């Protein structure tokens, strides 16, 4: 079997430990290994990988395979960061007995994802501590959108009734503050219910999925080339990262690798996306503690990046750039100079902005020790990306699973352990500096050659995991191909889905007026979560 050398000892250990209980092992790529087993193996398998090999569960999802194999499949994707590989456990769920065992008590990171499977596939959760609805609001009719016999274009009557059965919080002086889904600012919709006693927040309940658009179902109805455009609309601020993750999955499914020049262009675009979002967030965090001047400077710099994006890719949000097999547009000397100029110009600007913020003691006072996400909580919830790295959870796909051009450039991954708003802002600041360095290296090493590998037809019944470290954190697209140049299933995993529950933890004990800045410091995508 073709696997990475670092995987061999783990594979041997797992096979020996679960001797006879694993039905099949196959590797589709040296770093992507599938295990087929029965449901009763899931807890033991997970526990073993977690304890012995420091694995983490990065995605849990379902797939309706009733047509061919007369079962639903559940997939558990574990990242083994040190071995640079993904282990994917596949277990069947018979349609006669549509239920599955929850892992949430042992691995809280699985919480929302398991409930999403329950909602969208109609598979009942057994042993889940909180099996309420998650992806579909409470009074949705009994439909299971991701089952194959459910038609994408089904017309449902307008929603009415109850959104969510909120838990009651009782006690002397306890009252509720309900916010949303339409917020005061220009942001996405979601509902927050704070239970407060005096000023401190005792408990925060989230009601999301207001912008559920049937995206995963829609993928199944589109030709794969159109899927790239749909992926761009999963989360607007991560358009390029999501589209590239989708392309990566398709490329892996058909064993085509993007040419080196295309990978360099992808890395440049991913870093541009990181820079403009991080700049915006640094500014927005300052605004939320009333330091508006800093935000104005940050927005000015962000606008500068967006205009260069437009010059490089024809679109300010880098849309239309991604395509299967590589990228659509090559850059000429003028464009490369524009990119180099941008980096050279932004660096002193950022230095100056950082100094401006550092000089404001009242800003620092508001940000330090605010919204602390403790490292052990971050680890339990599997918090990824910038929020995880600000709480000591040191993972970055760019380093641990090098994709695009990241194996050709050098960079460090900043990590803090304090987990407060100040550190989540500092992570962004440090990452922008790293992005400057990455962009300079890309420009220096800019390889010649093609920008697109030929990729016409997608054969059916291939499965592959595409992954990209977006600016917010790790993005996964898992696809199974179907006849007719289509995907039979596309599971989209945005880092936000993993991180939202952490917000409820970070806000505890803080005052309600600090919620906007704590929320902004995570800056999670509603659309990426709800899809």
């Amino acid at each position, binding site marked *: 079997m073709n696997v990475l050398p670092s995987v061999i000892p783990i594979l041997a250990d797992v096979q020996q430990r679960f001797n006879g209980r694993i039905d099949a092992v196959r590797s589709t790529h040296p770093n992507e290994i599938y295990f087929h087993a029965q449901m009763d193996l899931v807890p033991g398998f997970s526990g073993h990988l977690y304890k012995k090999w420091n694995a983490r569960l990065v995605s849990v999802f379902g797939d309706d395979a009733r047509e061919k194999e007369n079962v639903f499949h559940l997939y558990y994707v574990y990242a083994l960061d040190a071995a640079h590989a993904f282990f994917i456990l596949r277990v069947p769920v018979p349609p006669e007995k549509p239920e599955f065992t929850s892992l949430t008590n042992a691995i809280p990171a699985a919480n929302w994802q398991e409930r999403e499977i329950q909602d969208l596939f109609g598979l009942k959760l057994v042993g889940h501590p909180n099996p309420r609805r998650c992806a579909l609001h409470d009074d949705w009719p009994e*439909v299971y*959108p991701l089952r194959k016999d459910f038609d*994408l*274009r*089904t*017309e*449902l009557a*307008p*929603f*009415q009734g109850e959104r969510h059965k909120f838990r009651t919080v009782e006690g002397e002086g306890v009252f509720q503050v309900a916010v949303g*889904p*339409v917020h005061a*600012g*220009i*942001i*996405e*919709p979601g509902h927050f219910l704070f239970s407060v006693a005096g000023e401190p927040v005792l408990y925060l309940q989230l009601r999301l*999925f*207001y*912008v*559920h*658009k*049937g995206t995963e179902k*829609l993928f199944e109805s*589109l030709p794969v080339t*159109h899927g790239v*455009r*749909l992926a761009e*609309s*999963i*989360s*607007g*601020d991560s*358009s390029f990262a999501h589209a590239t993750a989708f392309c990566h999955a398709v490329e892996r499914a058909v064993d085509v690798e993007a040419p080196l020049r295309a990978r360099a262009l992808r890395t440049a675009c991913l870093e541009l996306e990181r820079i403009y979002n991080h700049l*915006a967030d640094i500014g927005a965090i300052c605004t939320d503690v009333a330091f508006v*001047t800093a935000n*104005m*400077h940050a*927005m*000015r710099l*962000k*606008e500068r990046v*967006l*205009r260069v994006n*437009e*010059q*490089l890719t*024809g*679109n*300010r*949000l880098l*849309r*239309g750039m991604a395509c299967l097999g590589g990228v659509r547009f090559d850059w000429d000397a003028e464009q490369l100079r524009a990119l180099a100029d941008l980096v050279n110009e932004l660096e002193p600007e950022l230095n*100056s902005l950082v*100094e*401006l913020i550092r*000089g404001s003691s009242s800003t620092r006072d508001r940000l330090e020790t605010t919204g602390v996400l403790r490292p052990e909580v971050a680890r339990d919830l599997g918090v990824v990306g910038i929020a995880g790295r600000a709480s000591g959870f040191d993972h970055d796909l760019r380093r641990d699973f090098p994709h695009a051009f990241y194996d050709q450039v050098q960079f460090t991954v900043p990590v803090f352990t304090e987990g407060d708003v100040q550190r989540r802002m500092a992570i962004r600041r440090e990452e922008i500096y790293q992005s400057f360095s990455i962009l300079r290296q890309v420009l220096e090493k800019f390889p010649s050659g093609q920008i697109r590998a030929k990729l016409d037809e997608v054969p059916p019944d291939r499965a592959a995991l595409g992954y990209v470290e977006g600016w917010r954190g790790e993005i996964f697209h898992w696809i199974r191909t179907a006849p007719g140049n289509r995907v039979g299933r596309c599971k989209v995993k945005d880092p936000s889905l993993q991180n939202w529950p952490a917000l409820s933890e970070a806000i505890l004990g803080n005052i309600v007026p600090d919620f906007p800045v704590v929320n902004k410091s995570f800056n999670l*995508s*509603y*659309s990426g979560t709800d899809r």
Partner: protein
Amino acid sequence: MFEIIRKSLNTGVVTTRYPTIPAEVSSRARGRPEIDWANWKDARPATAICPTGAISHQDSDGQRVAKLDLGKCVFCGLCADVDKAIRITNKCEFATRRRDDLLTRASYNLKPDGTHERMVSGPAVGRDATGAPAEGVASAQRESSEALGEQIKERASKLLGRSLHIREVDAGSCNGCEIEIVGLTNPIYDVERFGIHFVASPRHADMLLVTGPVTRNMELALRKTYDAMPAPRLVVAVGACGCSGGIFGVNYASRGGIDAVIPVDLYIPGCPPNPHALLHGILMAMERLK
């Protein structure tokens, strides 16, 4: 404090003079696609590659009706890659008051091999063959940036003397439109110079700026927000999804464009529309408040 002032002084004025000057977009930006209607030979490749159905055609009785819907277009430019009769321009301002004005149709005689010939009716009949000024788009073009800039000069006191309060509602967008709407408040575009202000409550708003598609879960919230606004009120649909449902269209979770739920006064296409396009549309809608 001194540092803050010093930095501001050093930075100087960065605000654009748009709309008195044309939109500052890159020559490489992908804006409105223009079809050479009179010389178009085959609508099939573009229809097949268009991810949102913005370009489509219907054949019956030896006739083909081909259609370009800017309200669905995501400006990916894929159609121009496969069809030489289509050219992507960098024009970004084409907000319209009627949804139909975003549509252009032409009918042709269908040939046996599936291509078409001889435009029977369409935008460029009796005009030059460049096909650019399409029937519906023409009205949008009349209100292009320069023209609008002139109008504003003429009625500056009238228009700028009044303030407009906007409530933004995300009824299901991917957040792309929000990025550009927030951009309106940056020092480059600075909408406050027109007396335009984003407010926190629909009760304070004259205009509802809505991004879409309207999801099943946001429909009620959108209706309630609209109902909470005092009259007279304007509704502006933003982006391909807001105008038409975009790539999501109508499905079990999506109702489609904003006008499927509340009446819309102005459509601003784009994916997302850039701040120039948004500003152009908002200023156009303001006249309506007279």
